[in-house]
Structures are given as structure tokens and as C-alpha cells.
């Protein structure tokens, strides 16, 4: 009896010794995974922006969680929603996954009830290893907000055959190269060519071109340079000009956004920090500079150079418009929804339906009379791949004007910097070809 006992004890000891390092490693790894915060922890939420009562409302949430060793890590997502400013928050928690979606159809239906329009607040928070959290919106800022409307006017965009495009009038041509009347070009063998990153047109028809490869913003009048401002520019710098000729240049510095103000006389200001985020676009409401911060798709008024916001107010879901209100837009597979938010209510909402798929909404602008100008990138796959832009002037219930323009693109201009509604009321397009960059002008007064 004693001998077998000793043998068993010995065998057990051997087994423990053999397995111990593995157990210890496993326990250590688990402990480290719990303790070590991730190196990268990012949250991506696609807000519905503008939903219609009775339809399914889903919010995709993606979390990128990367350990210090460069491997993915697990996280949990909490999504909370609230109807009205004083309602109770309703929260749900789920493990993050590659196709996680929160279905808010129930809360949306209850919030809308018998009303014609309402909005819901949204907060999303992810928690990762080591107690690391990331939230959208971050900190204690006001929540994201999306809007629900009972009825939405549907208008069908006229179907325009691919290739039936209108040519604009060239108002500026800049051959590639170095110098005052040329535009810088970088054309790597494996990578898209880079050139002017953005442009805008003021009320006098002056064209502001961002030329990162020559480190300058140039103002042209009648095709001739009248002013040049030298400043360091990122390859994707965006620009918008106010009614008074002040230009705002949105740029990226690491994972943070900065804006530089250029006075009407061409003097550059110090970089103004906007905060963390990816650049969406920069626009103005005529007087203030406004930045669309991604991925949360929130609009912020650009603070002054001492860091104070010129206009009080929280970030907004829509783009603040001249004279008040916000412009909201959201792209679906074959639809573009537009609306104006005023006093917390959605007005003049339109669902523009297209016969082809839509890529980006390259331009959305209010027309000041309850309608909108929009430029949508249309594309198809069969019978052969094709794409072009459709310009639309829409009002609730009808299409006022529509025509197509080509998609001439040699350099990889960022998607939302290819069109501008100029301060003079005309539509402008930045196109590029192997010989240079052109600004085309389309008069908008004679389409029907």
C-alpha cells in the first residue's frame, strides 16, 4: 500500500512540475491581458442621422482594440439612448464583434409615438482590457443625436445615362510643376498621385487653391494669382472661405485636427487645435468656420486662436447654416436624405431616390428657400463599371434641376473637396488630368 502511494505521489509531483510552467504562463497571460491597457482603442459608430418612422433602425458599432504586442483584444460595448432632454437613458451592453449592430427600432417607435418629428440622444462606450474606455462622444460632452420623422417627402432623381454629362467652363488651369501658376504633383509608381488637396470660391469669384506640395494657399482672380500664403500643409488639407474672405484650412497632425486661419489679407494665423479625430470637412456658415469631425460626424465651431469658441454652443449633428438651423444628410445605398433641423425639429426633409448606387454625397448645401443643392457620386458595376456625378436641385416634393458631370480624376483628391457651391452662386468642380488641375464652373441658373 505504501509503495503504490509513494509512486502515485511521485507521479503527481512530476505531473505538477511538468504542467506548472504552462499553467503559470496561462495565468500570467490572462492576468496581463486583464491588466495591460490596449495600445490602440478606437470606436466607430455610424449614427442613423435621419430615420423614418416605421423603418428598421440599426446602429453599427465597431471597436478596434490592439494590445501592446499588436494583437487584437476583446472589448465590450454599451450603447445608451434617450428620448427627449429629460427622459431616462436606456442602455444595452454586448461584446464587441466584427458585425455588431444595435437595433433601435423599438425605442425609435416609442419616441416618435404620434409626433411628426423627434430626436434621440445616443451615447456609445467601449471598455477594453485594463479598464481602458473610449466613448462617443468623448468626455462629458453632449450626446450624439439623431432624428426621426414620421413622413418624409420622396423625390426620384431623374435617371441620366452614364456618359451623358455636361461640360463646365474652365475658369482656372494649373499645369503640373513648380511656380506661381502651376500646381505641385507627386506621382509615385505604387500609390495614387497627389496634387491640390482642396479649393473654395468666394463671393467675388476668387478661387482659393490649396497646393500642399508647394506649401501654399493661392488666390486666383480671372485665372491669375493675386495672393499667396506660405504655410506647412498636409497632403489632405481642406479649405473653406467666409463671406469676408477669411480662409480656414483644416489639417491633421498625428491623430489630432488643427485649423489655420488665413486673413483676408493673406496672413496666416497660428494652428488652432480642434481635438482628436479624423478630418471630415471644413465649411463656413458665411461668418464662422465649421469642422466636421470624424468618425463621430459632429460639427464644431472653430475656436479662435486663444482657444475660445467664437460662438457658444455644443457640437451639432448637422452643419450649422447661415441664418440658423442645421443641415443634416445621410447616404444610403440608393438614397440621399436631406433635412433641416430647427428648434430640435426636422423640417423640409427629403429622401432623394436614385436608380443607381450612390457613393459619397460630394456636396450638400441649402438653397436658402427650403430646398437643397446636392452632388451625388453615382456608380454601377454592370454591364461595365462606370461612375459620374449627378447634380440636383431639390425641394420637398420635386426636383427643380438635374444634370450629370463627369468624374475626371487623375490625382486622388479627397472625396468631399471636389465640388464647391461658390459664394457667387455657381457650382465649381476640381478635376485633374495628366497635364494639370482645372477648376470648372457650372452656372446653376439655367437648368431644368
Amino acid at each position: 500500500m505504501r509503495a503504490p502511494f509513494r509512486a502515485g505521489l511521485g507521479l503527481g509531483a512530476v505531473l505538477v512540475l511538468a504542467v506548472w510552467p504552462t499553467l503559470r504562463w496561462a495565468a500570467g497571460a490572462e492576468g496581463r491581458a486583464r491588466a495591460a491597457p490596449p495600445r490602440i482603442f478606437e470606436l466607430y459608430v455610424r449614427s442613423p442621422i435621419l430615420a423614418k418612422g416605421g423603418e428598421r433602425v440599426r446602429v453599427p458599432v465597431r471597436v478596434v482594440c490592439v494590445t501592446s504586442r499588436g494583437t487584437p483584444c476583446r472589448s465590450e460595448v454599451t450603447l445608451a439612448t434617450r428620448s427627449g432632454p429629460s427622459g431616462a437613458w436606456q442602455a444595452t451592453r454586448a461584446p464587441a464583434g466584427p458585425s455588431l449592430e444595435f437595433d433601435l427600432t423599438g425605442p425609435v417607435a416609442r419616441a416618435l409615438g404620434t409626433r411628426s418629428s423627434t430626436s434621440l440622444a445616443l451615447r456609445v462606450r467601449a471598455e477594453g482590457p485594463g479598464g481602458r474606455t473610449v466613448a462617443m462622444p468623448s468626455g462629458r460632452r453632449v450626446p450624439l443625436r439623431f432624428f426621426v420623422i414620421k413622413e418624409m417627402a420622396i423625390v426620384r432623381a431623374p435617371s441620366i445615362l452614364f456618359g451623358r454629362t455636361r461640360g463646365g467652363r474652365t475658369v482656372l488651369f494649373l499645369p503640373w510643376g513648380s511656380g506661381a501658376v502651376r500646381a505641385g504633383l507627386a506621382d509615385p509608381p505604387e500609390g495614387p498621385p497627389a496634387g491640390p488637396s482642396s479649393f473654395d470660391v468666394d463671393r467675388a469669384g476668387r478661387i482659393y487653391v490649396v497646393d500642399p506640395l508647394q506649401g501654399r494657399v493661392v488666390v486666383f482672380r480671372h485665372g491669375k494669382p493675386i495672393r499667396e500664403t506660405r504655410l506647412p500643409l498636409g497632403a489632405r488639407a481642406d479649405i473653406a472661405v467666409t463671406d469676408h474672405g477669411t480662409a480656414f484650412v483644416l489639417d491633421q497632425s498625428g491623430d489630432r485636427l488643427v485649423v489655420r486661419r488665413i486673413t483676408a489679407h493673406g496672413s496666416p494665423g497660428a494652428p488652432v487645435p480642434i481635438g482628436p479625430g479624423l478630418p471630415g470637412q471644413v465649411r463656413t456658415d458665411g461668418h464662422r468656420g465649421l469642422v466636421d469631425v470624424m468618425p463621430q460626424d459632429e460639427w464644431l465651431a472653430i475656436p479662435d486662436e486663444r482657444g475660445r469658441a467664437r460662438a457658444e454652443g455644443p457640437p451639432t449633428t448637422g452643419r450649422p447654416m447661415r441664418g440658423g438651423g442645421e443641415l443634416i444628410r445621410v447616404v444610403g445605398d440608393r438614397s440621399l436624405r436631406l433635412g433641416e433641423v430647427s428648434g430640435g425639429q426636422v423640417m423640409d426633409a427629403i429622401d432623394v431616390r436614385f436608380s443607381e448606387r450612390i457613393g459619397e454625397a460630394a456636396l450638400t448645401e441649402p438653397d436658402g428657400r427650403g430646398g437643397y443643392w446636392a452632388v451625388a457620386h453615382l456608380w454601377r458595376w454592370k454591364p461595365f463599371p462606370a461612375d459620374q456625378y449627378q447634380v440636383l436641385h431639390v425641394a420637398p416634393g420635386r426636383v427643380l434641376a438635374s444634370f450629370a458631370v463627369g468624374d475626371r480624376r487623375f490625382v486622388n483628391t479627397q472625396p468631399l473637396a471636389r465640388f464647391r457651391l461658390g459664394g457667387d452662386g455657381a457650382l465649381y468642380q476640381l478635376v485633374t488630368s495628366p497635364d494639370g488641375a482645372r477648376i470648372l464652373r457650372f452656372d446653376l441658373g439655367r437648368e431644368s
Partner: protein
Amino acid sequence: MRNVIIALGLSVTVVLGPLVHPAQASWVSANCHGTYVTDHYVRRSDAQAYSAVAAGEGYEWGGGCWNNNNRDDTPGQPDSGGEGPDCSGFTFKTWELRNATGRSGFTYWEALYSVHGPYATYDFHAPVGSDPFFRLPDKDATTTMYMDAFAKNGHVGMLYVDSGAPDGTDLIIEALGDAAGTGKFYESYRSQSEYVAVRREGWTPDCWPNCQHPARPVVVMP
């Protein structure tokens, strides 16, 4: 004998020393001493994590080595053995492709191992049957998944997250160029007709190794 070796060494140094100019030592030759290993279970999330860490690095045509310090260590020095991948090299390393055309399976390449791989953008744009990646039948959002790529003859970038943006663009991770470097950018490649959608073969499911308890894809709020 020892003195002979020392004398020989000194002679070589004296004769060849002036010929070796410090500027000729490229960033890659000075820094890229990583390694690689055969990999068996590679999920899209692994590829996404690998690419995420590379955001902020530089761009180098034909390059494939970077140090993940969130900045371009060789700015303004194109085509000089500098830091960063080009677009096809970045896709090659992120997808853990093998360094020989047509070979299936996975190889994990450390960021500091300098390799571009045998595929150019032309190959990603027009895959052949033996390639370990293939062209998708369309570019619909319901077809593409994160870490698929959009490729044209001249550029390739990977879909970083597949939820899209409200303005209709996609968040792409890509080695964009000397000025922009490697990073995440909102792009419209899905709607540009010259781009096709491409998928790497053989991903291990994201649920691995816990596929018996997969996460719920849709969470319904009551």
C-alpha cells in the same frame, strides 16, 4: 597570426573607409533587422490590428519596413531606402502573404523586417487563379468585409472598418504617398469605377478560438 589579422583589418579600413559615406547608409539598412515566421491562424482582426499599429508611419515606394513609432522617420526623402511601405507592400504584409507568387498560407512579417513581396497593384487589381486573393463579384457594402481591399492599377487600400460613414465614404487604411504617409483616410474607392474589390483567401474566422460562443451580431434594444 593575431597581429597579421589586425594589420589586415586596419589596411581594409584605411583603404575602403573613405569610400563608405555615412549618407549611403539608408534608414532601412540601419533599422530593419526584424524577422518573420510561418503563421497558421490569421483572422481579419489580426490583420486589422497589424495595420492599425502602422498608421502614422511613412511611405516608401517599393518599401516594406517601419518601426511603429507613429511618425515618418524619413520625411521628405522619397525613394531613398526610407521608412514605410508602399501601398502594395503594406497590403502584402498586412494580409500575411507569402513571399512567392501563388503560394497559399500565411507568413507573419515583423514591421521591422524589410519585405515588399512579389505583388504590385496590377496583381491586386487583376488577380489570377493561382494568387492567394481573388476579385469579389461586386463592391456592394453587403459584399465587402473589413480588411478586404479596393485596388486599381496604381493603388490598393484596405477597408479598415466596414460600417461606412454617413456621407457615403469608407474609412480606408493605406500607404498613400510620400506626403500623406501611411494611415486612415476617408475615401470613395467603392464608387470609383477603376477600383475593384479584392479578398484575401483563407482567413481564419474572427470567432476563433471561441467559435462555440460567437458574439451576437445584432443586439435588439427593447
